[in-house]
């Protein structure tokens, strides 16, 4: 379990993390989602105690990470930036980390096998590809068999097989009752892995909700339609609240009419459809909606304050 309370981090003028409060619970994969520069990596560094918060606190299983007797048993992390000496082999890197907690060498061999680095374990880590580096980072994170696993953009640079492997690994870890926090800027990746989402933008928490809630909150009724008789269909659905955009002949993106309904209209008119695809929610959609809500909320709050002060003046 990770608990953050009013966590903030400023670097000089720049506010990287702004008053974040959240709880990451065990037994599920929590996705930490936000565009690049939203403060995900900084938050993870604050959780690990690598950076000190400007304000607020964050605990891992009830205590600040640094106060645990066996920190690697509590939380294993893969940080986005490489954290390996380039001239040391993967095997020796893991052995040095294991030594701090007196973890035996068989475990080092085990995690090397687990991430599929056996053949290159004795080579300099500096010669590793991005994907191999990620695998080594994941091996480091799993070394002490921790209760909390925190991975920053783990699938960056992995091949498709590696991506699927990470997905399954994280699902398994959560299934075993561990706390799993996974950051990404890719909604598509999160949809396949996460059960719960923390969405951040510009250092602020925009949403803390389950995957289902996210889908409900951010459903779009955008439908992609491909038809040789696109113009007839366009004319048939035209009406208030319906927008149709077209980037190429025969292809339209229609908002305001559901896919079911569109299908019925087309069938009624006897129009041929090559494609009728409800568009999936993208991170961009979620973001637009959440930031729009945040702006509205702020505007509303200001209005209320104004009313309050106006009343004060009149009394």
């Amino acid at each position: 379990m990770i608990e953050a309370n009013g966590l903030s981090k400023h670097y000089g003028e720049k506010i990287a993390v702004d008053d974040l409060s959240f709880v990451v619970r065990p037994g599920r994969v929590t996705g930490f989602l936000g565009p690049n520069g939203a403060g995900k990596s900084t938050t993870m560094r604050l959780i690990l105690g690598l950076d000190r918060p400007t304000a607020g606190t964050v605990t891992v299983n009830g205590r600040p990470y640094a106060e645990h007797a066996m920190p690697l048993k509590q939380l294993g992390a893969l940080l986005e930036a490489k954290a390996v000496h380039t001239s040391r082999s993967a095997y020796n890197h893991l052995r040095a980390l294991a030594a701090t907690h007196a973890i035996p060498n068989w475990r080092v061999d085990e995690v090397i096998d687990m991430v599929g680095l056996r053949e290159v374990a004795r080579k300099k880590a500096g010669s590793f590809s991005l994907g191999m580096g990620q695998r080594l980072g994941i091996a480091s994170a799993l070394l002490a068999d921790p209760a909390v696993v925190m991975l920053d953009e783990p699938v960056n640079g992995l091949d498709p097989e590696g991506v699927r492997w990470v997905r399954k690994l994280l699902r398994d870890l959560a299934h075993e009752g561990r706390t799993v926090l996974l950051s990404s800027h890719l909604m598509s990746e999160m949809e396949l892995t996460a059960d719960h989402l923390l969405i951040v933008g510009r250092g602020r928490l925009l949403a803390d909700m389950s995957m289902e809630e996210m889908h409900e909150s951010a459903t779009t009724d955008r439908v992609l339609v491909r038809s040789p008789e696109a113009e007839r269909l366009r004319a048939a659905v035209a009406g208030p609240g319906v927008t149709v955009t077209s980037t190429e002949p025969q292809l339209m993106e229609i908002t305001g009419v559901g896919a079911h309904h569109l299908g019925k209209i087309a069938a009624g008119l006897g129009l041929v459809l090559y494609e009728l695809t409800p568009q999936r929610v993208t991170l961009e959609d979620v973001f637009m909606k959440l930031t729009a809500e945040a702006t509205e909320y702020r505007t509303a709050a200001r209005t209320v304050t104004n009313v309050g002060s106006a009343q004060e003046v009149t009394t």
Partner: protein
Amino acid sequence: MSTVAAAISRDPAVRREVPAKPVRLRQVIYSEWIKITTLRSTWYVLVFTILGMVGIGAIASAVSAAHWDSMRATSRATFSPVDTSLTGVALAQMIIAVLGVLLTTGEYTTGMVRSSLSAVPRRLPVLWAKLAVSAALSLIVSVVGGLMAFLVGQALLGSHSTTLNESHAMPAILGAAFYLMTITVVASAVGFILRSTAGGIATVLGVLLVVPVIGNVLPASWQHHLMPYLPSNAGNAVYAVHPYNDALSTGGGLIALCIWIVATSTIAAVLLRRRDA
């Protein structure tokens, strides 16, 4: 392939409990030992340190033996076969200073420090362990290098040579080793303070080579108060049989070197605790 491997090792029936112990300084020291000894550059530098000590000592000894007859009387009066064979300390200090800096800045430039501090988030044990391991390695290598330089030097000095039984010999060799160890520790601490390889090397070599030169142009009264306490001069007082004029006593030199160690490592400790990694 790896998918299969992962599936097998994550099978609950196969998985074993992973044993671990609370982080202790002893374990962190072992971790630092693994880190330092698994970098090939460490071994290169240590071998060069020994070669430097032996090589320069051999040249100085051979030259002294060859030119003994043309040497001035004053030079003969202060001639020490021990000092001559240990001339290589001047080169060894620079090589080992670079090692000291690299051992710590290498962590920062590669990002390794994030892993190190994640494993030991209390941070200070990492500093103490790293300083202890680099000090131990430096001391061992310097004693070995000093002994070899002494023996090779005496062999080349011929009739002007001395033996290990001479009362000055072992104190000089151990004193030189202590000085070189000091330089390593101070350089490592400076590496923690500056976190940059170039800056660290420039600073340490600056203190060893440039500051004494600048000091020479200071007013004499200042020189007298400052110069003996510089690491290179304090070290000279510790290991030289005939130190330079104005040098501290052997004990004073030892204390000055210890103060350098304590001062730089204290600053490193305070900064390591305070700064974002």
